[in-house]
């Protein structure tokens, strides 16, 4: 729980704020990221995906509900809420109901350690990075429960594929993140970000301060696509093979929760990659001579702005890839993980270690 004192004054003041026994300030600090995520994931993530895919495909996308279809997602949510909540007769009711819940919790718990600015952080754990990587693995349990509980052959295929994929890709992803942890010398998300802050803006980011970081950066980005089941690794939910994969039988709000969890984890991995390699909430603008661009664009609000922008950028790249590339096959996916990414991540690990020792 250690951050630099200057940055903490702001958040200390806020967390000291309370009405009687109720710690209002702490609740606000913890709630802001989550409220943002809920808003983002429910409306603008889905809306953005639809618009971006539409523009890539010579279409307009949603245009009817609200100006330029801005309220389309809201209308969709209302529709999903009104739908009958169907549990198939032969399904394992407990697992079927609990599956989306675990999935949702797994993807949203990681937001607790994401620093959205010098002050906005749910919990600045000293093992933040480790926690974020570990808690995501909970999603696997949810997917397996959903797939097995559905009592549907397609859902089972999807669940088994998904578990194999997510568990495998956790290895290169974790090793790649360890490189960043080594460069920073800490596992705390806030500390990793602080290590990359400075008057030079982007020149202090790990991606640019050393010659090896691009390798773990790329490895983590590819693995994160696989971990969030995004194309070209959307094999667990491959709609042309497995109908809809592990959520074939879901409808209504349970489907929406799975959907929400997917967009939540999309933002989560995008935020983690920005924190580990692209300086998290630090401003990319450098101070040029007397022009104090970096100082002007730093601070609590700017911090939140920058990390959200960086997150959106990676989400855009994810969508871009999704709407461009075909899907890999299961064995090719495993080949890529075990024979390409894992060895290269180990190489990156050793090279980073050598670099850290020599500097």
């Amino acid at each position: 729980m250690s951050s630099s004192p200057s940055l903490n004054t702001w958040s200390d003041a806020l967390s000291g704020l309370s009405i009687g026994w109720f710690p209002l300030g702490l609740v606000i600090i913890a709630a802001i990221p989550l409220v943002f995520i809920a808003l983002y994931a429910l409306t603008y993530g889905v809306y953005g995906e639809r618009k971006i895919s539409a523009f890539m495909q010579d279409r307009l996308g949603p245009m009817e509900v609200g100006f330029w279809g801005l309220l389309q997602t809201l209308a969709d949510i209302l529709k999903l809420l009104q739908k009958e909540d169907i549990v198939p007769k032969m399904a394992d009711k407990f697992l079927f109901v609990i599956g989306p819940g675990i999935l949702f919790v797994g993807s949203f718990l990681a937001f607790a350690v994401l620093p959205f600015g010098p002050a906005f952080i749910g919990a600045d754990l000293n093992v933040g990075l480790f926690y974020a990587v570990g808690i995501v693995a909970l999603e696997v349990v949810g997917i397996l429960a959903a797939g097995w509980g559905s009592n549907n052959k397609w859902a089972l295929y999807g669940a088994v594929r998904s578990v194999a994929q997510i568990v495998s890709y956790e290895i290169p992803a974790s090793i790649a993140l360890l490189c960043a942890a080594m460069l920073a010398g800490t596992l705390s998300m806030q500390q990793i970000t602080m290590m990359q802050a400075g008057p030079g803006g982007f020149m202090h980011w790990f991606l640019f301060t050393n010659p090896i970081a691009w390798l773990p950066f790329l490895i983590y980005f590819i693995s994160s696509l696989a971990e969030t089941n995004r194309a070209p690794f959307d094999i667990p939910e491959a709609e042309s093979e497995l109908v809809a994969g592990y959520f074939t039988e879901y409808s209504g709000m349970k489907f929406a929760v799975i959907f929400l969890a997917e967009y939540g984890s999309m933002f989560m991995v995008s935020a983690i990659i920005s924190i580990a390699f692209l300086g998290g909430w630090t401003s990319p603008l450098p101070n040029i001579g007397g022009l104090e661009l970096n100082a002007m664009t730093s601070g609590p609000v700017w911090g939140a702005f920058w990390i959200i922008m960086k997150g959106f950028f990676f989400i855009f790249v994810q969508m871009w890839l999704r709407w461009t590339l075909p899907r890999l096959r299961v064995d090719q996916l495993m080949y890529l993980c075990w024979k390409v990414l894992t060895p290269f991540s180990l190489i990156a690990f050793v090279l980073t270690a050598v670099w850290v020792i020599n500097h």
Partner: protein
Amino acid sequence: MQELGKAESNSIRITRQDDQRVTIEKDLDTEHMVLSMGPQHPSTHGVLRLECITDGEVIVEAEPYLGYLHRCFEKHCEKIDYPAIVPYTDRMDYLAGMNSELAYCITVEKLLDIEIPRRVEFIRVITSELNRIASHLVAIGTYAIDLGAFTPFLFCFRDREHIMNLLEWISGARMLYNYIWIGGVAYDAPADFKKRVAEFVTYFRPKAVELYKLLTENEIFVKRTKGIGIMPADVAINFAWSGPMLRGSGVKWDLRRNDPYSVYPELDFDVPVPDGKFSDVGDCLSRHLVRALEMEESLKIIEQCLDKMPEQQGFDPRAVIPKKIRPKAGEVYGRAENPRGELGYYIVSDGKSTKPVRCKARSSCFVNLAAMKDLSKGQLLPDLVAIIGSIDIVLGEVDR
């Protein structure tokens, strides 16, 4: 070591070691799972049902079940007049209605032995080649969807829309045209038809290249299709394959060249056959490649037809259409190169009736699909999807 016996389909093995000890080995018990793929499944292209016996993700056997879209085409034909059958042929291969009509009409014309005006021949070839491009665009687009790429599909449909507009303009319908009639066509081509088709050709050329770069040369796409579902040329011939499927196996067989009809002998075009450099001959990629390259050949044909088509003021394409079609007694088999292969009609006339005694359609999709069982044996589930997509079936023609 001597094997004494096996039991329960190889899962128990009893062997005697060199020192006379007997060992009994038992494998892990596994069960095959029966997976019903379809009739409502995203990648079975309609209402095909595949009953797959799977061992994990490996297909042990896949048996296609047909008939969900059976509409008694052949029985209907025995009750209606020759010209009235034309709209029914549209509904067989609904993605290439013009080609189906052309195949039927040249068959009946063979039986009637009548002369077709030259302008009509060119209109027929232009419309059916346009329809061939449209059909290949759907085939390529849906194949991309099968392999998980959504964008090429919409690019294909954007370009197909222009063809649909052209065909709607000339015939009044977008899919089920009823345009090519026995002895002629329903209407003459509109005044600006040549100009707008030429515009389409210049528009479409770069788009076809773009599609080729986006999809066909894509690394993941090649990985998913190269070496999958290989069909050797001799087996393909034994299965009576035709069209892009047979050409994908390396056999240069195109009815427009090998059994020419209409004005095709006058036209200069290639029959693309994979050479084995980019793809393994006979695999899914080869079949896709043939379709992708054929679109360019169709464009060439259209361009030449536009040059050669005679201009005739006040031309009446219905002038030579016989009022009452009553062919002399006999039987005839006529065939044409459809986007999916050889579409043939076998018609028997008794010489008295205005209705055929028998009208049998030789459907290319149905024949091509027959090899499904052999192609899918031992493949992975995602490869099965790739194979079904590469066969490019239209269930309307499979079931008739």
